[in-house]
């Protein structure tokens, strides 16, 4: 995990080296500051000199301080810069990958969690690149530098430093493994907690209808308490490592102080040298202590990275073909197609075969769970057949470039997703370059124009937050408006299962009839008037087609279809 993250730094060798050089500068300045200060104090205290005599040394001390603070800031600034660039790279990779994985992957995930990875998850990487990793370097550089300056003057103190320093990373690693596992658990708990909240609010109406608000308030307390328990469990251990580190450093300072104090007592060491070591002692341990503090944030960073890498490692379901689809007027043929959704035992499609000729209007009819939506998902290339093939003319669908394939078709789902943007932008999904005139034209064709006109800000009305919401029928018409704007030759429709209001019902019927004129059409149909007009009815049951023909022919046949229409009927 760490190695994989560090690889992202490969492109930034010069800035990384620059920040390393600045760290060295900080180390050197630290040592010189201690030298000047101990000189000045010793001169006044031991040699009884006047202030005027040491003034220059004091000013040198201050200048070195400025140098140290300046280098520290410059080094940190460079690191923030690198970290920002790496975050951009990873964001780019993850969003590209998400597009490749497509809707079938996104639907399996919790939207809130996935969104969190994309936003907060990427932000958390900062802790690794600009805090944890540099601290790891600093924790080596500064102590080594300090040692180099102490050894020539005082072997004994250097020995204390040398003996205590390695203990710190040792304890850190010892406790780190436990803490790492715990941190990941905590990150997952946080993800669940967030998902729980976003859902709670999405389902607020249901919560009110069921009257389970109090139950859920209790549940919030329970879930947050659980979260607190796991987090405190993590922290107790994560902080334990910091405790050990701090103990080591503070006790070492105490040992050094007592040890040089006693040697001073017997005149074995000069006061100036003793003070020099004492001033440096906290500087020696501080980077190691800070590392302990950053360690926890570093672990959180790694846990976030794990989720991001999990997305990157996911295999795209469709092997993306390169072939351009031949002419748009080709027959669509399903040959013995099988599909089973992951996690479900029963297969959604079983040896499904059918044929749609160019210009033909085909309706998929059948009970819920018959596999109608799966057919659409296959045609939209959200999923690929597990066995069998789909042919477009003579080409395999799996060999065709999915983007080019989709550019030749249009789709009006039952529940189109409404983006939190203006109505006009939502219609423009069909064609981003469309002028407002064309958008209005499409809305008129979809019989939605009048309704939009009535909104306070017309086509500029915002959907979503503090904006307008559309009824099911209106959303359906918006989907049709998108389809009108796109002008494709193959149209896939998914009629709403439930009844729309009367106005929408007629509007949708009229608009759909206009839309499909002269096009190849596949519709999941629930309406009698739709079915009656179509060239071909595919009656689906349990993942395959049990009857096929025109509405009239099938009714005459008095088979399963006739029975179904008779009993269930269509919505209208």
């Amino acid at each position, binding site marked *: 995990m760490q190695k994989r993250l560090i690889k992202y730094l490969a492109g930034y060798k010069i800035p990384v080296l620059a920040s390393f050089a600045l760290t060295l500068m900080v180390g050197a300045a630290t040592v010189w500051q201690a030298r000047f*200060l101990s000189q000045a104090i010793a001169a*006044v205290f031991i040699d*009884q000199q006047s202030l005027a005599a040491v003034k220059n040394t004091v000013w040198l*001390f201050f200048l070195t301080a400025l140098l*140290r*603070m300046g280098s*520290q*800031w410059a080094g940190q600034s460079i690191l923030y810069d690198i970290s920002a660039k790496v975050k*951009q790279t990873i964001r780019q990779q993850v*969003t590209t990958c998400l597009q490749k994985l497509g809707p079938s992957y996104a639907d399996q995930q919790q*939207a809130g969690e996935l969104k969190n990875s994309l936003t907060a998850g990427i932000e958390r990487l900062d802790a690794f690149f*600009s805090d944890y990793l540099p601290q790891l370097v600093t924790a080596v550089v500064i102590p080594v530098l300090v040692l180099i300056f102490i050894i020539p003057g005082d072997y004994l103190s250097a020995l204390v430093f040398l003996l205590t320093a390695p203990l710190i990373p040792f304890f850190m690693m010892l406790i780190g493994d436990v803490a790492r596992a715990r941190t990941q658990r905590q990150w997952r708990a946080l993800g669940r907690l*967030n998902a729980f*909240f976003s*859902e709670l*609010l*999405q*389902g607020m*109406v*249901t919560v*009110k*209808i*069921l*009257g389970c*608000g109090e*139950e859920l308030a209790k549940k919030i307390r329970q879930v947050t308490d659980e*979260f*607190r328990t796991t987090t*405190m469990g993590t*922290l107790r251990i994560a*902080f334990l490592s910091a*405790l050990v580190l*701090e*103990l080591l450093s*503070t*006790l070492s*300072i105490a040992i050094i*102080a*007592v040890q040089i*104090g006693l040697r*001073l*007592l017997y005149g074995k060491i000069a*006061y100036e040298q003793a*003070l020099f070591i004492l*001033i440096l002692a*906290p500087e020696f341990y501080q980077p190691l202590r800070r590392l302990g503090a950053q360690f926890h944030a570093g672990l959180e960073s790694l846990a976030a990275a794990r989720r991001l890498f999990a997305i990157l490692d996911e295999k795209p379901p469709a092997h993306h073909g390169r072939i351009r689809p031949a002419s748009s007027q080709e027959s669509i043929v399903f040959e013995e197609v099988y599909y089973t*959704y992951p996690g479900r*035992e029963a297969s959604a499609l079983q040896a499904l075969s059918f044929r749609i000729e160019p210009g033909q209007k085909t309706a998929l009819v059948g009970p*819920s*769970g018959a596999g109608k939506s799966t057919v659409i998902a296959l045609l939209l290339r959200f999923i690929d057949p597990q066995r069998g093939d789909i042919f477009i003319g003579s080409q395999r669908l799996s060999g065709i470039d999915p983007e080019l394939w989709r550019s030749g078709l*249009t789709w009006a789902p039952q529940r189109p*997703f409404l*983006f*939190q943007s203006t109505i006009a932008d939502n219609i423009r999904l069909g064609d981003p370059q469309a002028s407002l005139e064309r958008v209005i034209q499409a809305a008129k064709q979809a019989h939605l124009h009048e309704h939009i006109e009535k909104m306070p800000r017309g086509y500029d009305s915002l959907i*979503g937050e503090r904006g307008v919401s559309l009824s099911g029928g209106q959303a359906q018409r918006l989907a049709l408006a*998108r389809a009108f704007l796109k002008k494709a030759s193959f149209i896939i429709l998914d009629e709403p*299962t439930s*009844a729309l*209001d009367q106005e929408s019902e007629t509007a949708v019927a009229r608009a759909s009839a206009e839309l499909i004129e002269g096009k190849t059409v596949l519709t999941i149909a629930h309406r009698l008037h739709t079915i009656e007009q179509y060239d071909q009815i595919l009656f689906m049951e349990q993942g395959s087609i049990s009857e096929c023909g025109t509405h009239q022919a099938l009714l005459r046949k008095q088979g399963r279809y006739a029975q179904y229409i008779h009993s*269930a009927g269509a919505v209208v």
Partner: protein
Amino acid sequence: MNENLKRLFIQSLRYKWWMLLAALLGFLTAGSAIGLMMTSAYIISAAALHPSVAELQVAIVGVRFFGLSRAVFRYLERLVTHSVTLRLLAQFRIWFFTALAPLVPPQLAFLRSGDLLSRVTADVETLQNFYIRVLAPPLVSVLVTGFMAALYGVFAIKLGLIVFAFMFLATLAVPVLTAWMTHRIGGRRVDLESQIAILALDGVQGLADLTVFGRAKDHFKRLAQLHDEFIALTKKQKQIVALQESLVGVLMNAAVVAVFMTAAPYVEKGLVQGVYLAVVVLGVMAAFEVFLPLPGAVMHLREIVCAAKRLAEITDMQPPPIRDVMGAMMPVYDWDGPPKPDIGFADVTFSYGRSEPPLLQNFSLIIPPQGRVILTGPSGSGKSTLIKLLLRFHEVGQGTVYVQGRPGMQYDSDFMATRVSAAPQQLFFFSTSIRENMLLAKAEAAPADVIRVCEMVGVHETIAALPEGYETRMGEWGVQFSGGELRRLAIARALLADKPIFIFDEPIANLDAEQEERIWEVLAGLPRHKTVLVISHRLPKQGMEKWQVYRMEELQHYGKPEDSEKILSKKNL
């Protein structure tokens, strides 16, 4: 003080003792570090004068004590501080949820968007930092400043004043400078953050639509543009904070120089013993560590104020008032007797907006106790609206809605939910297990009860066939189940809730013939003492005699209130 900040403060006061304890521990930690350096400096300075070992004994014990106490206090401080943080998080979450609970769905409608997700998860999470990042650093800084000024004042008043001056600058001037330098960045960053959240969620949830229309690339490109700007601003902000931290370092060194320059002449003149020169200088160096988190606190304060402001927009909404409608009593019932299960609409006129034409006009319908009623009529005639009126999600314009013989306006929507078991058309299932989703209707229901209602509607076999049975998680939006299965689960959930009044909105949509008849049978077979209202396009094929059927048109009386009175008296048995 900012109103929202004040509210936050009041919420936090619940844990004031915890917070004081944490601050005290923070002060003791800093104090130990200072003590360690000062006693160490004293030991070597005193030793340089070659006294007997005995004279150093106390200082040696002191050094060891501070060495230990610093680490221990720090550990305790961090534990207490984080525990306070998580307690505050729970506190703020529940506060937000309880503020939300009395609101009715029309008020909540606009919240069903991506921004809400960012609000509740991110904003409430931001609030949790209120103590650890905003209150704690200045609290500890002030304590340390006071302590150090007093301590140095003992050596010489002037030293005390110098130390106070530099620490005052670090406590106040540096944070103010930080606030000024980051003023513009902060606001824009918060804007960007919420826009990015919206785009990211739209991108995830609307990926199917984006993909089919070939717009996914553009969508994520727009996300990338905003995110790049956000990253750049974050970087700049962090660089400014780092600059301020270096500034604190410069102040510390300046303080060291000032203390030295002041103390040296005192030593020269013998006003201060020479042993203490190193002590006061090293003490100042150790003390400045507490001022380092202050520039960061400014950033956090700004974020928290923004988050609190956004949350307040939601929590400040008022639920519809509970009104005592004395005049509108239904004549049929004895008000002092036990409440009777029934539903009544007396002369109700309702429209969704002022400008919209009324959906219901002088609508009257009385369903007596134990009634079995099917309400049919064309789409858009307001059938589904009746449920929302009964649950008091909307205010009726005119007329009165009765539940169990009492005017609905006397109660809030939560009370109504305890009387009515409803299966509306809009279905929502949480991505928890099937069992947990069912138990929302009745928390104390036994597993056998859950199975019983699922058997009644014919989904038990489907569920039992799943590898994890009733423990199977339902995907977000319930994607794993077909529309018909979800609808039947919603019916089962309403059955489990088992309240005096049942209302089903289009319970048989998406169902095949066999399932449809089964549902009709179940609904007709509900216990005698329950009142059942079914809204449906289609009527049952068998057992019609069990039902009373009304058409919407019969019940609306455009502009003729006298008719509705007639209906009221006629229909009241």
